[in-house]
Structure formats: structure tokens, C-alpha cells
């Protein structure tokens, strides 16, 4: 009786499919990772032990550093609507192209008088420019107040939810500047907001 021979199987596996999947995932992660734009202001955020993630939608970020305040709101539709409203308040007409370009700017800090010029710049020029920050001194010239107010109206109109605010401050920033921003928010009865921090372990 002949012995039953077990056929030896090759140990070489075909890795092509695995390689395909791996690179597909890699491409996906690279693309999603690079969409984050660089901050116009270098901000070293303080750390805390809080472990709650920041929401992705309907949030506005006020960046505070070097005595300057930068404003940014999430969502292209909200940005366009906010710009239209700001144009109405300050009697400036923005073309459709300008609105489109503005909707791609994540955060900015220029007075409204210079906004048209700022929108006209391209990305690399914009990152080189030192932005003076949004005027936020109390009085008639409080542009930050208008931005906050119009962004709130825009979010309410488009998404029917309240816009949330978060403050992204530099660790070394003196408290009076932070207080100024908090006061502007409180003047509009916004008593709840988030402070953006990085994660730190409890020691």
C-alpha cells in the first residue's frame, strides 16, 4: 500500500492584496492629516488633565497670543454667511470669488478695513504676513464683537444650533487680554465656553 503523501504547501504568501490595502489606508491617513492648516499665530497651549475632545462642528475658536486676537469659525457655509453679514454691517460688498476664498481661511486676524486685501493674497503670502489681530478694544471700534455676533447669527440661521466658543490662548499670555475676550463674550450673554488645552497625565 502506497503511503499517503501530504503535499507540501508553499509558505510564500501573495502579499499584493495586503500591500494594496496598506497603501490605500496610508493614502487616506496622509490626506486627512494634512488638511489641517497651519495656525497664523504660534500658540503654545497649556496642558490640563481634562480628557474631553473638542467638538468638530458649530464651534468658533478665538486664538489669543502676543496681545492679539484671531477669529476663526468652522464650516465653509458659516464662514460665507458671516462674511455677508459683516459686509452688510460695514457696508462692504464682497464678490462671490472673495467669499469663496474667504471660506477657505481657517483663522485670521486683520481689521475689516484690510480684509479685502487679505482675501486677495494667496496662501503662501498669507502665511508670511504678520497679522495685526482683530481690534477688540471696547468702544465703537470693537470688530471682534461684530464677528462673534454675526457668526452666531449665521450658525443659528444655517444649522439652527447655538455656536459654541473656545479660547485657544498662549501659556505666557497675560491675563488682561484673556479677560478682555471673556468680557466680550459675556457681554453677549455667553457664559459657557471651552478652553483648549493639551493632554497631560495626573501626577
Amino acid at each position, binding site marked *: 500500500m502506497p503511503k499517503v503523501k501530504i503535499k507540501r504547501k508553499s509558505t510564500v504568501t501573495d502579499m499584493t492584496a*495586503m500591500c494594496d490595502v496598506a497603501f490605500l489606508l496610508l493614502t487616506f491617513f496622509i490626506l486627512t492629516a494634512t488638511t489641517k492648516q497651519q495656525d497664523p499665530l504660534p500658540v503654545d497651549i497649556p496642558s490640563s488633565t481634562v480628557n*474631553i475632545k473638542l467638538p468638530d462642528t458649530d464651534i468658533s475658536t478665538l486664538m489669543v497670543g502676543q496681545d492679539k486676537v484671531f477669529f476663526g469659525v468652522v464650516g465653509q457655509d458659516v464662514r460665507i454667511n458671516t462674511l455677508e453679514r459683516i459686509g452688510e454691517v460695514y457696508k462692504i460688498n464682497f464678490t462671490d470669488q472673495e467669499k469663496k476664498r474667504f471660506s477657505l481661511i481657517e483663522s485670521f486676524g486683520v481689521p475689516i478695513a484690510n480684509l479685502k486685501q487679505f482675501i486677495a493674497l494667496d496662501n503662501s503670502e498669507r502665511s508670511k504676513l504678520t497679522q495685526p489681530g482683530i481690534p477688540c478694544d471696547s468702544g465703537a471700534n470693537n470688530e471682534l464683537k461684530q464677528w462673534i455676533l454675526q457668526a452666531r447669527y449665521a450658525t443659528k440661521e444655517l444649522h439652527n444650533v447655538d455656536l459654541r466658543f473656545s479660547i485657544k490662548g498662549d501659556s505666557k499670555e497675560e491675563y488682561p487680554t484673556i479677560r478682555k475676550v471673556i468680557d466680550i463674550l459675556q457681554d453677549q450673554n455667553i457664559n459657557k465656553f471651552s478652553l483648549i488645552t493639551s493632554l497631560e497625565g495626573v501626577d
Partner: protein
Amino acid sequence: MAELDTSGGGNKKGGKVRTKKQSTRVDLTAMVDLAFLLITFFMLTTTLSKPQAMDMFMPDKDEKNPDEVLDVKASRTMTVLLGDDNKIVWYMGVIGDNPPTVDNYGKKGIRESLITNNKDVIAKTGDPKKGLMVIIKPTDQSNYKNFVDILDEIKIAGVPSYGINNKVEKAEISLMKEQGAFK
């Protein structure tokens, strides 16, 4: 799958020199290794870069009815003054009643004070809900990091209630000057 067909042609006999057929199968192991390494890297960096949000509530700034303030017994309150150079001055109750203490930020500093004060107050009132009430007063010489740190310490120490007050009294400034925490 990924191999090229190289068997075509060249089937004639004759004195022609035949080149040796080489396998076109490429070892993909190293490439897959690298790809997965990069995937891991990008996955971790994208999830870690999402910032944390510390929710914060400010007391209602209603100028119409200023009388509507929360009444808290002075013995339950602890006023924390944030000074310059990362220093904290705190006192219990009304200013002048209890001697002020200078602390620093960190595990051995303000956190311990908050925990012991909270325990004392709960022991005094006998109600775990009526714990310490911390009033934070950041001065002009404190920075944003101090502010975030003190909120964080309060959260870690488990103090039930806190409030932020931006009006620093003159007596408090001079108190801080005495302690060397204000210039």
C-alpha cells in the same frame, strides 16, 4: 497577480543563445512593513492632535439685578489670588480673618491645600454637598497658564463649586504685595 508574463516568444530551436528566465516575483514584505509603520504613525498623530476642551462657566453678568448673587457662608469660601511669577496667595473666609498662605502650582502646593480645606469644610458642615467654594481672582500679572492650571487643580481636587471673579480688591493687592506675589 502582480507578476508579469514573460513566457511569450522564443520557442524556436536552433543555435540561438537563450537568456535565462528570471523570476519577476518581488518580495513585498519590506514594503508592507513600511506601509504599516507609516499607517500606524499617521493614525496616532491624527487622533492625538485633536485638542482637549476644558469647559468653563462664568457667573452670569447680569447688570439688571445685581442683588441676585449666590449666598455662601464666608466660612465655606476660599479666595485664591493668582499673582505674578507663578505664585498663589489664598485665604479662607473674609479678608483679614485668616492669615494668607502662599502656594505654588502643583501636587504638593495648591492641590493639597484645596483637598484639606475641602475636607475641613465638609467636616464642619456635615454635608458632602456643601463643600468648599473657591473664588478665583486672577490679577493682571498672572498669565493664562496659571488660570488653566488652577481650574485643573480644582477639578483634580474634587472641589464641588468654584467661581471666577475679575474684580481684585485693593486690600487684596496689598496683601499680595506683603507676600511678595505682586509687583
